[in-house]
């Protein structure tokens, strides 16, 4: 098999995951948090596809799984953006720091 092996894909996946987690934890805008969540999810999908390609390329259920995951990601985005819109309508900003009613 030509091209890069399994490890570079996993490294990129891990890097994406790290970037996404850092974004989730550090971003103030809910939109950016949502986008970071998406990066994390895509890191997972990338890892999944990499494993499929290099471990069991003869079967395609992993591909189907990846497509299902991407679909769920799209749905999750729609729901997340819906929440975000509500948040914005309620308080005129999407800064996650302003939404702290759950403080115990």
């Amino acid at each position, binding site marked *: 098999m030509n091209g890069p092996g399994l490890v570079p894909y996993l490294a990129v996946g891990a890097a994406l995951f790290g970037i996404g987690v850092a974004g989730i934890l550090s971003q103030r805008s809910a939109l950016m*948090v949502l986008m970071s969540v998406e990066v994390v999810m895509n890191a997972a999908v990338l890892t999944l596809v990499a494993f499929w390609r290099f471990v069991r390329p003869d079967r395609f259920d992993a591909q189907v799984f990846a497509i299902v995951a991407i679909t769920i990601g799209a749905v999750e985005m729609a729901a997340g953006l819906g929440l975000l819109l509500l948040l914005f309508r309620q308080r005129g900003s999407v800064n*996650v720091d302003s939404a702290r009613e759950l403080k115990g």
Partner: protein
Amino acid sequence: MNAALCLVPLLPLVASATIAVGLRRGARWLSTVSLAGSLGCAIAILVASARGETPEVAAPWLAVGRRSLTLVLRADPLAAVAAVLVSAVGVLVFLYALDYMRPDARAPRFYAAMSLFAGSMLVLVLAGDLIALFIAWELVGACSYLLIGFRLEDGRAGPAATKAFLVTRIGDLALLLGFLTLIARTGTSHMADLGSAVPTWVAFAIVLGAAAKSAQLPFQGWLPDAMVGPTPVSALLHSATMVAAGAFLLARFQAVLGPALPLAAWLGLATAMLGSAAALVEEDLKRTLAYSTMSQIGFMWIGIGSGSVLAGMVLLIGHALYKSTLFLAAGAVERGVGGTEFSRMGGLARRMPFTFAVSLLATLALAGVPITLALSPKDRVLAAARHASPLLFWLAIAASVLTAMYAGRILWLVFLRDREPSSADDARGSMRVALLAFGILLPIGLLADGRIVGSPLSKLIGATDSEQPVSTAVALVAAAAGFALAIAAGRRWSAYLIWPGFARLRRPLSAELGLVVVYRTIARGAEKLAALAATFDRRTFDAGGARLAHAVASFTRAATRIEGWLDSAATAAGPGMLRTARRASRIDRDWLEASISQAARLLLAGSERARSTESGRIENYLLYAIGGVLAACVAGAFALLLR
């Protein structure tokens, strides 16, 4: 030649990506020059395909099981002609935008979207397989959304963009289902392997998809609203991209559509009639042009639906030339008088002689007057219609009389009518250059129809030319009659060039027949569903909560009563117990109470500390979640190691 084929769509796409990533200063030049490069490559490909070559590039995309999907770019003659058209019109529109967009602070965004628009349209015309075609199709739709909604500060832009996107989406769904069926049936997505005929419902699905993109009945509502975008967007969207994509798709699949072709022809006729009638009563220049586009695309559909791809394609080329000219002239007028309503215009022929000259040329072409030695593109459509059905032919003639009338009306209202010219400057700078280029291209292009391109094009596309002198004569008479009517009406009712009774038609004509009812029904259904859900929620959950509270209250009452009994029993046990009780109470106070309050104090301190974790901050909760997952991973790893 294959490299050139790749470069055609790649250049504008790369330019778009570069601008999107952050290039600001040179955005306008980069996009213009890259599209000019595409034009060069497209011309090279056209020359090659005239020699009989068919450059083709294929790239495997993904393989699932036994099936594999390959993306193909393939320049057959039809595609090569369309690619040249798209890139040529695009270059001129970009050139025009150099000065038109100069005052706009968000110009880089505009150029990124426009380059993407042109690039995806080039992929669309050059696509050699269904998947690439569909991807480009969707990209064109997304770009139109971005560009129609470009003027965010205008409150109408957002809804117009959403409307365009959603309405075309209905057709996209039909198209996707049709394509998937085709791929499932033939096992390949390559267009050359489709076979001779497709299932009937797939043919109808393709026509439906094309109708939504081309704003044909019953999907026409989005097009006039889309005029809130900047004028170069309208010029590109109306001539070479977006709406032309529908006509192109129809031409591309014409050979296999079979039973759906008459439907396409009649849909086209209905739209042509409706569009020209609406253009006769509209009060806004750009919206008038939008209705005109609708009706001209309708004519293309009549041509293709009557079996003549050549007629449709020639009209597509001619229309692209004169409609983008008209839009660019409209942009110059808009800049000159500060708006697009007819009420601001009039008598501009003296103020803007240059714009007037170019518009005159384009309007005559729109009306179907042969302004050069060559024939007007519409004649071929009429000839094809005559071949298909006499009724279609005569109705199409009627529609072309209407076309000539609204063309005359535009000329009259904007340039000719006797009115104190407002202080308007003529087009300047790059706007002038682009208009001039169109002014030169227009006669060449229309001349080309008869002499230079017409017959070679028919050879290229492999379609037969069904030109007939009778329909040419009739078309001429129609155009002359329309113009005469328009000028006569203009003299009599000079204000709006409509007789008062006709003005009453404005509302019904601009209303969106059909579709709006469907939308309303869907929206009402959704509302009803939501109301039902709310009722359900109230009945079950809220009522359940109330019932629970009631139960708790009655339980508490019962408990109080039991306690009262116990109380009285204790009183009855009386003084004998008093001493014991005192002793017990001392023990209670000194030992039990002290320990209990100590425990409570500890608990309080603990919960104070625990409370600090419930910060209400989203990122803290996410941190717990991530930490939990990591801990689970570490535990899992340990478990694996220990095994």
